[in-house]
């Protein structure tokens, strides 16, 4: 099945109109000697039911969080996704439209993204939000570009306690632009920034990758004192309870929007949140939706500040991003509207409660301790008496997923993250800890 509608007669009439004999003739500009000259070695076409069965079997080879009770964290969380969110964001008009370059036919996507931007401003405490980037790592990388452009500096002081994968992305993508990344240690769970002079930015997580809450206000003072920007990677779920990073002095707030109604999806498609102060608007990456009016004076939405973007500014663009993660932003827009302020607060309360319950219980297991004293939100670092990676494997055999293990951090081979979302229950926490106790015994 190739989804083409062509009948023999169609093809004949079309070739006739074009004035060639065969379809082959249409390819005459392609040098014969370079052509493949055979069919691709891909196998024959399959019927939909065969394809479905094949994918079903592949999916069944995974032991995903439908089969394991999920206490895993580390930047991706098993929050409940309401059916209404799936239904709305799944509307085919959102799903199968292109980038809203023709705004008159794109008021749906534009409207949903405008609302997303509005809500992100509320959550971050920032003045302007973009329409979303590839993921949290990409957003952080773009924030570094913005800070460097804004300050004319190349040094970036990065907390050790950010997602190690994100740090690797910064390293990979920053090399060619000669950024100098300096790691600020977080040996006690929160970051000790040290000397930040000459920095374009300092980067801190709130909560950080260890789940710990940082002193963002102090980081802001430090950064601003050195003429640097403060980039905060925040958790959108935390700000029902915690002050928003903007209130605490952040200049750019980035984050991972997976938790806002998007599936775990083995890491993608996710959603990079990016918001900043208005003064930096023209240095922002990617698309931004703005309100305007039509020729009759009726309100409507368009893409705005496009002169920042690659299709207009080319090599002078603020970023190379074109296709982004719009559908995830639409999803987040629906999810946050579903959640509302009370939902956000209650969800946060429940995460805090379950996570602290888990920490209390786990800390009582023989040889275990909650590694850091710092306050935490919905995950914490648990230190085991033995290797964490192996313990996680054993725990999975009991039906529980936690982690990741933290061997990426020196001296933390025995450590893992434990996270609890609002979906979990007291009974599940207790049973998981019980299993863990057996696993490490």
């Amino acid at each position, binding site marked *: 099945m*190739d989804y*083409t509608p062509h009948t023999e007669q169609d093809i004949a009439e*079309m070739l006739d109109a*074009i004035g060639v004999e065969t379809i082959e003739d*249409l*390819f005459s*500009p*392609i040098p014969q000697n370079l052509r493949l000259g055979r069919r691709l070695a891909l*196998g*024959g076409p399959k019927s939909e039911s065969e*394809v479905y069965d094949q*994918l079903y079997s*592949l999916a*069944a*080879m*995974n032991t995903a969080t439908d089969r394991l009770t999920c206490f895993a964290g580390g930047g991706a969380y098993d929050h409940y996704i309401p059916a209404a969110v799936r239904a*709305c*964001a799944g509307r085919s008009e959102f*799903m*199968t439209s292109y980038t809203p370059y023709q705004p008159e036919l794109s008021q*749906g996507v534009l409207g949903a993204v405008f609302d997303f931007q*509005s809500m992100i401003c*509320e*959550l971050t405490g920032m003045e*302007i939000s973009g329409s979303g980037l*590839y993921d949290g790592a990409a957003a952080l990388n773009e924030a570094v570009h913005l800070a460097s452009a804004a300050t004319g500096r190349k040094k970036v002081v990065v907390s050790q306690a950010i997602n190690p*994968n994100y740090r690797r992305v910064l390293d990979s*993508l920053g*090399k*060619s632009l*000669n950024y100098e990344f300096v790691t600020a240690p977080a040996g006690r769970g929160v970051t000790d920034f040290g000397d930040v002079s000459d920095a374009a930015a300092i980067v801190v997580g709130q909560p950080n990758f260890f789940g710990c809450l940082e002193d963002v206000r102090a980081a802001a003072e430090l950064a601003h004192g050195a003429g640097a920007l403060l980039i905060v990677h925040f958790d959108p779920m935390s700000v029902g*309870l915690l*002050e928003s990073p903007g209130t605490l002095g952040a200049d750019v707030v980035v984050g991972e929007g997976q938790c806002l109604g998007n599936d775990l999806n*083995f*890491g*993608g*498609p996710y959603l990079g949140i990016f918001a900043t102060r208005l003064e930096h608007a023209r240095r922002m990456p990617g698309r931004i939706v703005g309100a305007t*009016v039509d*020729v009759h004076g009726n309100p*409507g939405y368009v893409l705005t500040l*496009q002169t920042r973007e*690659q*299709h*207009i*500014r080319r090599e002078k663009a603020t*970023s*190379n991003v074109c296709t982004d*993660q*719009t*559908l995830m932003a639409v999803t987040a827009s*629906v999810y946050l*509207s579903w*959640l509302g*302020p*009370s*939902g956000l607060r*209650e969800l946060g*309360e429940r995460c*805090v409660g379950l996570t602290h319950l888990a920490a209390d219980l786990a800390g009582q297991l023989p040889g275990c301790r909650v590694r850091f004293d710092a*306050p935490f939100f919905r995950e914490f670092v648990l230190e085991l008496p033995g290797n964490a990676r192996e313990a996680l494997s054993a725990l999975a055999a009991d039906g529980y997923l936690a982690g990741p293990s933290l061997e990426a951090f020196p001296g933390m081979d025995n450590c893992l993250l434990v996270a609890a979302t609002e979906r979990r229950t007291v009974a599940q926490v207790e049973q998981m800890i019980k299993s863990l106790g057996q696993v490490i015994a």
Partner: protein
Amino acid sequence: MSQNPSPALEEGSIYDLSIAGRRASTIPSKEAGLPSAGDSLPAGMLRADSPHLPEVSELDLVRHYTNLSRKNWSIEVGAYPLGSCTMKYNPKIHEQTAALPGFSRLHPWQPAEQAQGALALIYEMEQLLVEITGMARASFQPAAGAAGELTGLLIMRAYHRAQGSPRDTVLIPDSAHGTNPATVRLAGYKVKQIPTDGRGLVDLEAVRSAMSENVAGLMLTNPNTLGLFEREIEEIAKAVHSKGGLLYYDGANLNAIVGIIRPGDMGFDVVHINMHKTFTTPHGGGGPGSGPVAVSSRLEPFLPGPIPDLDQGTGRYFWDEDRPQSIGRVHGFYGNFGMVVRAYTYLISLGADGLHNLSERAVLNANYLRSRLEDTYQTAHPGLCMHEFVLTARKLRREHGVRAMDIAKRLIDKGFHPPTVYFPLVVEEAMMIEPTETESKQTLDALAQAFLEIAAEAVDDPEVLHNAPVRSPVGRLDEARAVRQLQTRWRPPGTGQ
């Protein structure tokens, strides 16, 4: 008398519906024995107020987004002939396979032992892409085409450094997509632009003279953005390679040539594939996409890691993290895995024969539509095109004051999404049309008819074009005002940004 029903209470923003105290969400209630935030967190960190999110009922919510969706065009509403975008049918089965809980509920930190199906899928998908592109290996980390470009250029950069020959410039044609020059800069290179010649092709001589030991390579899409096949590709490749440069394939136009000719066989060293184009993962109103990068064997060591591999002994898949020359990670996890599932579903559905049909019929459709229009409009370059072609409204503009944008907007009134306009930049008043292979002859005929009617209107009654669209939820929108009076978030009436 031909509009779809819409309700009385349609509002601009969901904030306009917000009423304090209303809600849609339900959160499991606090169970006994759970510590509270007040007890667990330092008081100084807690906020008093809540962020101002909308307060709506679930019905408000569903109505609002449903009605928003109904204001939007989509491939499932009608034809979407955006050049360079490959807006073909997005098979619904893709959504079902990607939503299987074994995929959609797989946590990215789960170890390979729990994700054998996902690793197998990525591994097999890599085999398919390698066969389709004629490359050696691939990475699925890049989340879209532009991310693939950056990954590809960083690989080229790492290669040149490993060769002891770091370089500072990348060549791109002046017809290239904006992501190409933007990416070149982000990869730490300078851009050197190569002119398009009278045939609409890259000027071979210009390439030859621009190439030097300082040039890392040339980025090219083939067919190019004019819809023309770069027939001198062998010479171009030679010119680039002879100076130690590498040839980068921008896969945005792969739809023309799948199963016909492979980038690897044309001499390309790096390829990115826009799976949200050729392999029809849905665009989602702007994203997500998936822009895997495939490379020839000499570039393989530099691919981002980790990459799944198969232990032939145990038959188990594992993440190959031991890639010392790798440029490192380019995504927080493994790329847009959900889109890889969709593209994989597509490739095994079509198989070799289907993929061959795909390109043949994409090219057939484009040429047919071109043949219907080229007497009335002018093609930028005469003759056969590949999967798309570029018309110019230069003459209509000069003679009747009608611009490409006017034609585009008038197409809306006639029940079509407009083509891409004002790209590529090398064509004045460009209209870039890509029908794709999933449109029927009947649809192409109707689209041609609409174009022809508009050409007649441009002569008889150009005002009707300037005033278009009139059959859309809003009239022509003032983009300049949106910049001047920047408003990018909802604000209570009477307050600023």
